[in-house]
């Protein structure tokens, strides 16, 4: 049972990283958008392994149901849809490797040389405790986040609206 759990875990890790690589390297942007779906699902599965049940559900609802739909709409609205083969060129491919490799070496060196603590939180339902936390310790950030969402809603509508007869 433990072995099966490990195998499934590594399958999910492979799914996440492989689809993230498709997102970054595929030439057609629609394929990238659909690969992003699998990345989000893989991250949700990793949340389940980390005993974050509420976050896994929110990940599927918000990222897959909201953000990914928005991104696919964005692809279709900003491309001439005569074919689904919307290409996406890359630029500065080699010069980008320098900071990325430096960043990667630094991050992995930091991760593998730091002695991390090993307090393990027990596996238990998190929704109730998370809700309590949001309405006590994180009440002000919670309200600020709702204001941010309202402002983003109004701002996005104002920006995306087409005004006839004006240059706006």
């Amino acid at each position, binding site marked *: 049972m433990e072995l099966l759990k490990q195998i499934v875990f590594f399958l999910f890790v492979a799914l996440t990283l492989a689809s993230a690589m498709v997102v970054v390297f595929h030439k057609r942007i629609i394929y990238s958008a659909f690969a992003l779906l699998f990345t989000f699902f893989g991250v949700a599965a990793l949340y389940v392994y980390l005993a974050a049940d509420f976050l896994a559900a929110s990940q599927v609802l918000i990222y897959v149901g909201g953000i990914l739909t928005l991104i696919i709409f964005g692809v279709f609205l900003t491309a001439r849809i005569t074919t689904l083969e919307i290409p996406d060129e890359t630029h500065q491919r080699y010069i980008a490797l320098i*900071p990325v490799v430096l960043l990667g070496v630094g991050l992995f060196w930091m991760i593998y040389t730091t002695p991390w603590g090993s307090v393990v939180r027990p596996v238990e339902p998190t929704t109730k405790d998370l809700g309590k936390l949001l309405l006590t310790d994180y009440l002000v950030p919670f309200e600020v986040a709702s204001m941010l969402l309202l402002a983003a809603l109004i701002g996005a509508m104002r920006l995306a609206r087409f005004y006839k007869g004006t240059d706006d």
Partner: protein
Amino acid sequence: MNNLTTYLAISAALFILGVLAMMTRKNAVSVLMGVELVLNAAGLNFVAFSRYGAGNLNGQAAALFIMIVAAAEAAVALAIFLNLYRLKATAEVNKADSLKW
């Protein structure tokens, strides 16, 4: 194998891929996908630390706020891309150079 280091390595790999997408892609929507990968990596890091580092739920609350900000940011970014497309008839980031002298 299921320890903090594994999760940190996965999230570092996701972060690097996201940065690479932001730097090399030309289409603005692809750049936004790179940003989403980076935000997912940060959220994964927070949840991993919540499970193995601190032993409380503060990390999960932070990951929830990351999701909220990601949703707001995606909506505003796509509205900006629509305007860019309307003005320049392209969604490529290197064509938005009106401020360049």
